[in-house]
């Protein structure tokens, strides 16, 4: 065993045992981030903070929540909201946080797409990010069921029903997921387990993996510039901070993130205290009733675009029913973002606006997703159904044409 000399300070004591000095260097003070980044690069830290808030508020809710169809609604709306001191605050933080986390995830994702941060060595960052997106979606869906209100019940009913469209195994699959022939106590209890144990564990793992995947390729920057990190880091450490292209994670990068966090939190707490309806649908304050279908059933806002891709196909084409077509389109929509690093065939890493064709592709995609989101909420009747179909078709065409568009772009760049 190594010889230990008596430590002169607490830091040294810990350093002898845990190597904290080196650890802090590797993780913080000599973890290098490019200097030319804007506040969009603070979204990752915002997400980390939001996840922490969700975790902490969730633990408090867990102390009083009862996962039983006869007790769930009142345990939330009476015990937590009205009896427990500040229970309402934890619920509001949790519900608003769960909704806003998706806003930030979408900003984070589309920042990645805009700056091309998913290619040339950053593929694993992208994959792990999409894994987080999928896990968060599952977390959001399972959590929404827990208060056992009307929308909890009917959204769960409609979404689990979607799996029934899968050929051959569909019907059995629905029963397997629900644990019953309809959405019932067994469904609530298993989604409770998923929501408070299995998915959060997976998310924690995926966050660690996501961070790890950032280490070798490093984060991208505003210009998509590649440079030698070691040279730039040496410059920085030698004191030429102004000319170095990098900054350390702590304190320089984080000082900016903390400021962004502060501004974000003003907005966030405004929503928590004064404007929470968008995250806590009023209909969900009616207790679940399997015999009374609400007039309008819609999922949470962050699922609306993919829900509309599903709903857009409402008529038969070439002998395939609208329902099956919708299901195929829905499946496509849910995996296609994962494949972006391979659909984008241009090697250029640049902001979208500096890429001759991709820029149109990007902004049309944004517009299309907004249309899908909007019409995913409106009743799918009359002209709305056709807008939904058009937007859903546009979505497919956009992704199917991406390889060709980017290939053309690469050729054009090669000619220059």
């Amino acid at each position, binding site marked *: 065993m190594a010889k230990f000399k008596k430590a002169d300070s607490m830091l040294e004591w810990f350093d002898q045992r845990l190597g904290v000095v080196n650890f802090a260097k590797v993780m913080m003070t000599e973890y290098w981030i490019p200097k030319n980044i804007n506040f969009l690069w603070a979204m990752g830290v915002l997400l980390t903070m939001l996840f922490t808030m969700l975790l902490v508020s969730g633990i408090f809710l867990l102390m009083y929540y009862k996962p039983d169809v006869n007790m769930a609604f009142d345990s939330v709306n009476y015990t937590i909201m009205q009896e427990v001191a500040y229970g309402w605050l934890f619920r509001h933080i949790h519900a608003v946080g769960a909704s806003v986390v998706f806003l930030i995830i979408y900003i984070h994702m589309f920042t990645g797409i805009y700056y091309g941060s998913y290619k040339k060595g950053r593929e694993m960052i992208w994959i792990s990010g999409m894994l987080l997106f999928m896990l968060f979606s599952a977390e959001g869906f399972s959590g929404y069921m827990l208060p056992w209100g009307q929308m909890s019940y009917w959204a769960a009913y409609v979404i689990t029903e979607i799996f029934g469209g899968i050929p051959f195994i569909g019907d059995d699959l629905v029963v397997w997921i629900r644990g019953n022939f309809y959405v019932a106590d067994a469904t609530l209890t298993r989604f409770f387990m998923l929501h408070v144990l299995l998915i959060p564990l997976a998310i924690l793992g995926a966050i660690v993996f996501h961070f790890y995947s950032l280490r070798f390729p490093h984060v991208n920057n505003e210009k998509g510039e590649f440079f030698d990190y070691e040279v730039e880091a040496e410059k920085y450490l030698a004191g030429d901070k102004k000319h170095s292209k990098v900054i350390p994670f702590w304190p*320089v990068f984080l000082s900016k993130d903390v400021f962004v966090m502060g501004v974000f*939190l003003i907005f966030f707490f405004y929503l928590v205290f*004064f404007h929470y309806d968008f995250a806590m649908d009023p209909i969900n304050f009616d207790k679940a009733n399997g015999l009374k279908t609400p007039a309008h059933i819609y999922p949470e806002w962050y699922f609306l675009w993919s829900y509309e891709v599903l709903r857009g196909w409402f008529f038969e084409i070439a002998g395939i029913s609208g329902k099956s077509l919708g299901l195929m389109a829905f499946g496509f929509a849910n995996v296609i973002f994962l494949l972006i690093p391979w659909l984008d065939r241009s090697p250029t890493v640049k902001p979208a606006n500096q890429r001759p064709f991709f820029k149109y592709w990007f902004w049309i995609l944004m517009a299309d997703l907004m249309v899908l989101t909007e019409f995913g909420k409106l009743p799918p009747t009359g002209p709305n159904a056709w807008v939904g179909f058009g937007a859903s078709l546009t979505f497919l065409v956009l992704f199917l044409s991406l390889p060709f568009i980017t290939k053309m772009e690469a050729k054009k760049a090669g000619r220059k």
Partner: protein
Amino acid sequence: MKEFKILAVILILVGITYYGIEPYAHSVMHPEVAPADFTFQDVKNVDTKLTGNAANGKTLVEANCIACHAIEAAGNPAVMSNADAAASYGVVPPDLSHAGRIYDANFLANFVFDPVSAMHLQHKYNAESGKQFPMPSYNWMAPQDIMDIVAYLQSIAVKVTDDKAGHKATFEAACGRCHNMQYAGIEATTPADNLKTYMGTVPPDLSQYIKSRGEHYLHSFVNDPQVLLKGTSMPRVGLTEKAQEEVIAYMEEIGDSKKAERNSLGLWVMAYMVVFAFLAYLWKRKIWEEVH
């Protein structure tokens, strides 16, 4: 500057999307309805300009009403238990101690004259359905007599304070024969089984309806249920605007009891975050000065 541009783009995209899925979608799914009418102009069988004589009203009420209705405030107890009353009439006739205060005078007079048309329940009680409303119409009475009854009920009406206890009394008098309010420990005076037979459905527990429906909806719904739920069996109860406000205030006191705490704490937390963001900005500037 560039960062402000990026922020502006994000705010615009998020703003448009928010507008579409919240206020706009809401207006499509819940179109505006006719404004609430607290004078109940549509029923005018009784000339409400006549001045009532409370003394004569007392005689009329004692002769016609207290066989079914308790009026505790005037010393007339219920003649039957709630269970028996519900079995006889379908629903427990409400105690009339508050009637003169909570019901609009025009509504009340016309209700006594013809309950079904005042309550907007013609779709349920008509020649075709053969159903009979449990309370008789007093359309044979002279308008003056009806106004005397109204004057009497007003003269004995219990006064309540403008606080939670007062709001509760109004709620119980107006809605208590049909609705539970579990979070306040209030159970409808009529047993659920009777209500199911009488109304076709068990009226919902109202504990959380201030949240699920909101004040705006309740404002028109309670004034006239048919406007928002065409064909519903819930009657128009005919409350004055003030009584209706008390009922809705009570629903909020029970259903959203932490509202005041939320609003005051909210301001403090936001003020704290403003200070936090400002200090964070100063810190950021100091640190970034070295690298720019």
